[in-house]
């Protein structure tokens, strides 16, 4: 009996793997798109890192 390289099973598994791969790619694109959208709408991106700096300290009252 000849050893057949491609079985019907491989085709089916390939389509499943392809589906998973494309889904993951779509997920990456989605997260990237969300990041861009969030930055466009001006969401706060700078978090507190426990050291005072001008951009996160409250403005001093004007005299």
């Amino acid at each position, binding site marked *: 009996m000849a050893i057949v390289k491609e079985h019907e*099973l491989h085709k089916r*598994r390939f389509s*499943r793997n*392809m589906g998973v791969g494309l889904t993951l790619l779509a997920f990456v694109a*989605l997260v990237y798109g*969300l990041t*861009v*959208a969030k930055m466009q*709408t001006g969401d706060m991106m700078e978090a507190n890192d426990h050291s005072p700096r001008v951009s996160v300290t409250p403005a001093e009252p004007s005299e």
Partner: protein
Amino acid sequence: MSDASLNTQDFSNDASFGDFFALLKPRVMSLVVFTAFVGLLVAPTSVHPFVGFASILFIAIGGGASGALNMWWEADVDAVMKRTQNRPIPAGKVTAGEAKAFGITLAVMAVVMLGLAANLVAAGILAFTIFFYVVVYTMGLKRVTPQNIVIGGAAGAFPPMIGWAVATGGISIESVLMFSIIFMWTPPHFWALALFMNDDYTKAGIPMLPVVRGRRSTRVHILVYTLLLAPVAVGAAFTSIGGPVYLVAAVVLNLWFITGAVKIWRRNEDAAIADKYSAERKFFRVSLLYLFLHFGALLAEAVLRNFGLGGW
């Protein structure tokens, strides 16, 4: 002695990508997507279109995940009922364990991602919806009480509320009314189905109303819920999401729905068997249209409002 061996395992039933997709109950998902989309669009505040798209997607995935977990828990019942025999688990394509892992993974991912994309209120309601559908309804009450449909209806009613929360970050009378429309609509919709699919539920031992309380009582229940639904559906016309277009649509649709319910209530079993449940089947079809057109009218009001029309 040789190391060679023949692998006799049968792979003919190996799951395809489509089988895993079928676990998400795509048809139910379409209702979730539509109602969540309407909830998001009719809200007074707007979100970035991509954030809106991603949020609806995560709501749909969350809904799909509860569908997969429902199929994992219900595999024994699904194997008995004609309507559900070809689902991936009873068909032997996906194991119950795979469905469980798939469902839990997607549920956690959907809630976390919705929280990051939108806000914690929306993510919280989605998490509660999944918990309610899987634990309270599927595991707890479905096989225990004939009011299972009433309780299960609540899970299906949350999506517009989540859509609203994505945009506004909260809950308000409008979103509660959208919830109530689906919540009150679900029992007459499913009991009409149960009237002509009774044999399936009897075989599976699920205590649907016609099995436990009888068909006469089911007919009365359909009428009562349809009458209670009408003021809720029409009442939404007088909130910020309503308007004249919605009011006309709601009045016409509710009169149509009530007429159908009265017809079902007045019939007896002999008449129903004689014409193969034609009134019940028609009522079921009308109910699908009823919900679609109500949310379609809300959407129309939102679109009109953008052009300075619509609303009061």
